[in-house]
Each structure stands twice: as structure tokens, then as C-alpha cells.
């Protein structure tokens, strides 16, 4: 599709004479400005949600997919030996990049959120955990399970698939819902601006009639309305985006113990996505008003 830059420039720069022929309309101006600002504010949050859940899905989908855990439950006297045996098995397993047994501090840190600090780990029958990092192609989990069953009877391989898959699916759904929300917000914006444009056109039928009487082309009349609504939507969306961006920026930052909600926001270059919201709102307003104006002018004899 060829973009006519001169027409875009004409829309932005405008024709001061043409702008004057349509009377200022306070109510529809406020309505359009407020709708565009409110919708842009909501789009910022929908976008932030999509980005956050996208990052979560990526992390759960890629990083966690490359790590597994072996849990060794054995009587006190056999725990160290079985851990050594499991590590030996892992050293000779294809697709395993590295494997290491978690030390006491690391295991305590894992349990601390549930049991609190100063947990007397020594007095509890806590299984030993081995963290396994996979190579890019991964390992044969079924084969490893069989070998562990034979050589380390107390070892259980957990490749996180059981809990990771539904979480990745949920995160992906949330991302999709965020994107669908953006589309719906865009459609609602278009509907509201169409209503406001129709109200403005209906309130100005006398003006349209006079303009036609003196030889105005329909395109000229439509342009006067379209430009006005497009600029209002652009301004409103810029305000809404700025406010939404500030609100997201000042959300509490992500803590290690926090859920994904505290990670809601944009990271680095993702902030640039906000820059496209006002122009997109303007494009939606342009299309909506142009369609409404075209229909109204066709219907007016």
C-alpha cells in the first residue's frame, strides 16, 4: 500500500481556512478527548500485561525448560552415597550440560518462604536436591529415569513439565487476552469516536448545507471534521498514554518473592511501544470519522 505523505502532512498541518468553517463543538470535543485518553490509558495497562505475561511465558518456557531437579530421599547414612551415584549417572548422560547438588544454605533458602528463617534443617528428613541443567537439545528423561531407578533407588527426576506446562499455557493465554483487550479497546474507541463524529455532523447539518450551497466539495467538508477528530484523538491518546506510562512506571518494582503482578510493566526498549499508541488512536479516529462523514454526507441530500 502506497502511503501518500503529502496527504498526511496536509492532515497534520491542516488548512486554517477549512478549520474555521466548522464551528467549535464543545461537547463532542470533550467526549472525544476523554474517550481517547481513557482508552489509551487502558491500552497501556493491557500492553503492560501482555509484555509481563509474555516475559513470564518465555522464562517458564525456555529457562525453566532447560532445568530439571533430582530429588533423593534416602536414610541418613545413604544420602551422600546416593547423591554421588546420581551425579555419576548424570555425568554420563547425554544432553546434560551440568549437574550439582544444592548445599544446605540453598535448600534452606528454598524452604524459607514456607517455614521461615532459622529452619533447623539438620533435624528434619529433608531430601537432597540436585539441579540439572540441560543442553540445547535436552536429555532423554525416560532413559534417565530408568537408569536412576536401577542405580539410585531413592532418586526421583522432576523435569518440571507437570507444573510448567499449565503455567506457560496460562501465561500465553494472559498475553493473548491482553492483545485481544487492545483490539477491543481500539474497536470501542472507533465506536465512540464514530458516535461523537455522527453527533457533530448531525449538529452541523445547517453548516453542511451552507457549505454545499457555496460550492464546497464533500471531501472538503469531510476533511474539516476528520482533521478535527483525528487531532483530538491524537491529543487525548497522548495524554492517556503519558498518564498510563507514569502509572506503570511507578508500580512497585518486582521483588524476588513477588508474583508476576509486581513485574507488570515494560523493560528497556519495550517502553517504545507506548509511542505507537497515540498515532494508532489517531489512525482509528481518522478511519472512523472519515467513514461516518462519508456516510452522513452521502445521506444528506
Amino acid at each position: 500500500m502506497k502511503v501518500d505523505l503529502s496527504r498526511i502532512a496536509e492532515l497534520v498541518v491542516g488548512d486554517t481556512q477549512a478549520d474555521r468553517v466548522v464551528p467549535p463543538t464543545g461537547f463532542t470535543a470533550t467526549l472525544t478527548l476523554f474517550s481517547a485518553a481513557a482508552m489509551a490509558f487502558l491500552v497501556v495497562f493491557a500492553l503492560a500485561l501482555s509484555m509481563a505475561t509474555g516475559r513470564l511465558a518465555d522464562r517458564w518456557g525456555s529457562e525453566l525448560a532447560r532445568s530439571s531437579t533430582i530429588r533423593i530421599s534416602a536414610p541418613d547414612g545413604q544420602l551422600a552415597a546416593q547423591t554421588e551415584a546420581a551425579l555419576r549417572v548424570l555425568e554420563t548422560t547425554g544432553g546434560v550440560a551440568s549437574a550439582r547438588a544444592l548445599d544446605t544454605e540453598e535448600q534452606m533458602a528454598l524452604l524459607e518462604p514456607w517455614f521461615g528463617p532459622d529452619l533447623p534443617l539438620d533435624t528434619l528428613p529433608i531430601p537432597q536436591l540436585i539441579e540439572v541443567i540441560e543442553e540445547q537439545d535436552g536429555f532423554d528423561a525416560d532413559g534417565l529415569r530408568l537408569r536412576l531407578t536401577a542405580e539410585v533407588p531413592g532418586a526421583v527426576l522432576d523435569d518440571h513439565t507437570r507444573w510448567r506446562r499449565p503455567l506457560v499455557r496460562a501465561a500465553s493465554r494472559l498475553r493473548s487476552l491482553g492483545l485481544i483487550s487492545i483490539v477491543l479497546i481500539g474497536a470501542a474507541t472507533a465506536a465512540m469516536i464514530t458516535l461523537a463524529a455522527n453527533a457533530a455532523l448531525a449538529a452541523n447539518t445547517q453548516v453542511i448545507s451552507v457549505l454545499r450551497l457555496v460550492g464546497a466539495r464533500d471531501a472538503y467538508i469531510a476533511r474539516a471534521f476528520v482533521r478535527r477528530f483525528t487531532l483530538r484523538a491524537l491529543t487525548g491518546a497522548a495524554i492517556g498514554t503519558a498518564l498510563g506510562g507514569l502509572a506503570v512506571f511507578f508500580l512497585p518494582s518486582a521483588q524476588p518473592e513477588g508474583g508476576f503482578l509486581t513485574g507488570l510493566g515494560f523493560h528497556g526498549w519495550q517502553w517504545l511501544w507506548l509511542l505507537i499508541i497515540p498515532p494508532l488512536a489517531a489512525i482509528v479516529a481518522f478511519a472512523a470519522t472519515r467513514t461516518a462523514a462519508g456516510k452522513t454526507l452521502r445521506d444528506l441530500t
Partner: protein
Amino acid sequence: MGAAVIELENVAYSYGGGELLSDISLKLQAGSFHFLTGPSGAGKTTLLKLCYGALVPTAGNVRLFGKDVREMERDDVAVARRRIGVVHQDCQFLDHLNVSDNIALPLMVSGRDLLGEAANLNELMNWVGLKSRASAAPPELSGGERQRAALARAVIMSPDAVLADEPTGNIDWEMSQRLLRLLVELNRMGKTIMIATHDLALIRAAKTHVQARVLRISNRRLQLAGADL
């Protein structure tokens, strides 16, 4: 006489199931002067609207400058209207613009540079005697001033024809004579003039200044008016 500026051929116009005008044929030659008369509700305004392409006939043909309106795009009709100045009884101004801007409206919509046309606009304001009222809002004008402003707006594009619908309907006799003199002056400049009016005194007064053809709408048809005028 020159070529026909506006031509109606066997035109009929129906609205709401009833026929308002029937079998109307009319040629407005360049430089001609016409009065259109008839009782209220006879269809004078409808006929004028057909003459400037605001309405499309239900039968017959209307040609503006030789082109059939049915075959013209909306934009073509808009461009043709710039060559036909229209004065309405209620003037139809944009109240958010001042008098000067209202008169300059045809220049604005045709994309002309107002600064470049300032001298013409000034001269025209002077011609209709509204120079001192240039920055007034339309509601502040008297009936006569409104009609003269509407006439100035109708002629600012130097049109080939001026159609006026009851231009003296809301003004006193002295003011209507002043307006008539302006229209006669325009006709002497070669403009085609058609005035719809039921004011027979105005027609009689005009005939002392200009050779005018008087048409009457009666029973939906157009007739040449008789010697009673």
C-alpha cells in the same frame, strides 16, 4: 442572447408521493433576467433548487452549463455551484463567522487565498454597503443588511448566474429597491439573474430598469406570465 447557462427540459419533481412540478421546460440564457412568481407553496423554491443542482428531477433533464446533473458527480455539481450564486430568503449564514468571512466563504471552500482576494472582498463589501459591518456577527445584521451580505456572498466568485429566492421577503420597500438595483447592476455586467418572488410590485419596479421575463408556476406547471404584470 448567449448559450443556456441553466436548462430544464420536461422536468418533473415528486416528493412524498405527490408531484410538485410537472413538465417544466426552461432555458436561462447568459445575461437574461427572469422573475419566477406564483403563490406560496407553488414550488418556486423547489424549481430554484433544481436550477442549481440541489435537487435531482424525478423526470426530465436539468443541465448546468451544458452538463446533465444526473451524469455529474457530486464534486462536479459542487464546482458548478461556484458558477451559480444563490441568495436564500433566510440567507443561511454561519453564525460563528463574521460577516466578512461569511461573504468570503465561497473563496475559502474553493481553496482561494483570502489575502490575495482581500481587495476584491473589500470592494464587494463597499458595493453592498457593508464595509462598516465587516466584523459584525450575522445575527447582528438587519434584514436588509443580511440580504445584501447574502448577495455579496453569492457574487464573490463572479458567477455566471445569480438565483435569488424571495430576497425581499423580510425587508422593507426601500431596502428591496436597493437590493433590486444591485441585481440589475449585476445583470448589466452580463450575469444571468432569476428571482423567485411573489412580490408583484417588485417585478413591476424591475421592469422599468431591465428587460425581464416573468414566469409563473401554476398547477405544477410553468407559464409565461400575462399582461397583468
